[in-house]
């Protein structure tokens, strides 16, 4: 594929690179990360550049890799009046995202109780295949959660009133309509709130080690400014509910495309005009799933507070277990950007990409207005993660988006052949990381060697200016779905 370096960290294929491309395709990556990218990324980002109504360019972030439909790391903004919405640009795990909590505890206080803490979290937060959460909601109550998001469970006692404003969109995206959700999706997800899931979903106890605070002012404002401070990060989404919404609409869109005369280069890019009945129905159902994902992460947050409180015999408030932020990285959002000198309303698809709004952005809660939106980038289970902050440059260059993780470089099967789960757990324990996992083969698939270097990804987005490093977090305890 014909990608040329057009500036430091920016690679571009012109619209002539593939038949049907409407805009250029861009990959944001350092020379090293670009070289590591698989052929799937090049194919998929140029396929995305063919979607009707796409603005400026199809984008892939430095953690990009081969997905289905869009590449993981893909960002595409469509004109809401003339463009399409594509479930393949969001993923089946609608509003898969990251949540990050602080504590007042230090590594020295946590280390003696680490095993007990991780073991108890492992039992309190069900993970793996086909698990049920602690809530038993009736169907009408679950529909309330689809509309209310995090607040729908906070008012049932799963959280603190101030939690909601510390979540992207205050934990509730407007526009949900449960009538657009199938009975199957409801019955598949109704018992799964408060479950972690599987694959690359995890929960980590992390530490801020000396030398890992890059922006002390922002870190202080967010309350993550102390060396050896313990924090908690986790990765989860909308579970079976979102997966079923995605499955239902993939079929509906496959049929709708014929009616609208749209053809795509990959059936997973099935799409419909955003303004069409099918496009609007999917958006309303997608918002239901996104809101249920906020609620899922909220129930998990509540369980984390209960477990910490139990282990340390102190109230969770006294332990300072506050939410720093919660980001969506599989989502489509209506946002406003300047395109060719004009402000436009766009539908921004982010599939494995994080919103990165700058200081002063009107959509940010008061608490974040002065500093910008926290960006949570989760690494592999061995290497650590980062907290960053949004920038003005992201609004100019990447539709307010940045990377979401470290990005795979090796297939699951290949990783399993290279390392045994039990050996990996031992190696991690020698490094001081205690792991509890639902599946040993799953652990092997998530080995650090199967991923890109997270620091290289974060340095790439910082060099591009689309987000800025605040703190690096390193794991001492991990729960693997």
């Amino acid at each position, binding site marked *: 594929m014909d990608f040329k370096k057009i500036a430091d960290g920016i690679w571009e294929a012109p619209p002539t690179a593939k038949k049907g491309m409407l805009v250029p395709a861009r990959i944001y990556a350092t020379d090293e990360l670009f070289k590591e990218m698989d052929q799937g990324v090049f194919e998929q980002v140029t396929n995305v550049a063919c979607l009707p109504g796409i603005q400026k360019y199809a984008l892939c972030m430095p953690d990009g890799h081969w997905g289905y439909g869009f590449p993981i790391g893909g960002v595409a903004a469509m004109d809401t009046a003339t463009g399409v919405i594509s479930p393949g640009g969001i993923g*089946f795990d609608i509003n898969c995202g990251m949540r990050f909590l602080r504590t007042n505890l230090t590594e020295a206080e946590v280390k003696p109780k680490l095993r007990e803490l991780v073991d108890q979290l492992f039992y309190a937060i069900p993970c793996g295949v086909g698990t049920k959460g602690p809530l038993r909601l009736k169907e009408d109550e679950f529909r309330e959660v689809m509309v209310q998001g995090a607040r729908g469970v906070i008012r049932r006692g799963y959280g603190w009133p101030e939690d909601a404003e510390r979540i992207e969109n205050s934990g509730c995206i407007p526009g949900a309509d449960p009538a657009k959700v199938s009975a199957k999706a409801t019955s598949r997800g109704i018992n799964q709130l408060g479950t972690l899931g599987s694959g690359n979903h995890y929960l980590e106890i992390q530490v801020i080690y000396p030398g890992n605070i890059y922006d002390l002012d922002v870190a202080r404002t967010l309350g993550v400014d102390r060396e050896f401070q313990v924090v908690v990060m986790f990765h989860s989404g909308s579970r079976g509910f979102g*997966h079923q919404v995605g499955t239902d609409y993939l079929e509906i869109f496959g049929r709708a495309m014929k009616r609208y005369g749209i053809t795509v280069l990959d059936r997973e890019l099935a799409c419909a005009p955003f303004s069409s009945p099918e496009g609007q129905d999917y958006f309303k159902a997608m918002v239901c799933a996104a809101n249920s994902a906020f609620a899922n992460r909220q129930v998990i947050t509540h369980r984390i507070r209960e477990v910490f409180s139990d282990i340390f015999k102190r109230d969770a408030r006294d332990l300072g277990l506050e939410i720093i932020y919660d980001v969506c990285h599989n989502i489509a959002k209506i946002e406003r950007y300047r395109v060719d000198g004009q402000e436009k309303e766009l539908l921004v698809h982010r599939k494995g990409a994080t919103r990165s709004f700058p200081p002063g952005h009107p959509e940010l809660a008061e608490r974040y207005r002065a500093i910008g939106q926290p960006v949570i980038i989760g690494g592999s289970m061995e290497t650590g993660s980062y907290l960053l902050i949004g920038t003005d440059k992201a609004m100019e260059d990447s539709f307010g988006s940045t990377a979401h993780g470290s990005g795979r470089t090796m*297939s699951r099967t290949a990783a399993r052949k290279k390392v045994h789960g039990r050996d990996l757990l031992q190696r991690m324990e020698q490094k001081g990381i205690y792991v509890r996992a639902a599946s040993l083969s799953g652990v092997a698939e998530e080995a650090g060697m199967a991923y890109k270097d997270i620091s290289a990804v974060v340095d790439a987005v910082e060099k591009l200016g689309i987000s800025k490093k605040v703190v690096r977090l390193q794991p001492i305890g991990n729960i693997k779905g």
Partner: protein
Amino acid sequence: MSYRYLEEVAIADVAFEAEGRTLSEVFEASALALTETMVDLDGLSPVQSRQISLTAEDLETLLFRWLAELIYLKDSACLLFGRFEISIREATEWELQATVWGDLIDYEKMSLRMDVKAVTYHLFALEQTPQGWRARIVLDI
């Protein structure tokens, strides 16, 4: 009937190729490849059964719906299936009737692996070969 996992396709997910002499066999092989992604088949007993009836306008959609149904039952009923009796026929639409046997998900009894979120249409194929039928599927993990 056989299946094999494809190593360097859709690296974050799981891709497989399934083959069978008949349509029923390729549907069965695909279902086994799906279940084996989630659990060690050796520890899965055929103690519970379910009837599945599906229709679709074409065979590819029927295969998609078949696997999607098994994934749906994994979350809604917490059931995984390892034994299948499938009959497929063409009437006004394609029709599938199946009895499936398996067990409730139980971490004490089974060696569970990765959860499958969905069947994808990425690189999806169902084609006739000189030996019968071949399917290629990418599962979202």
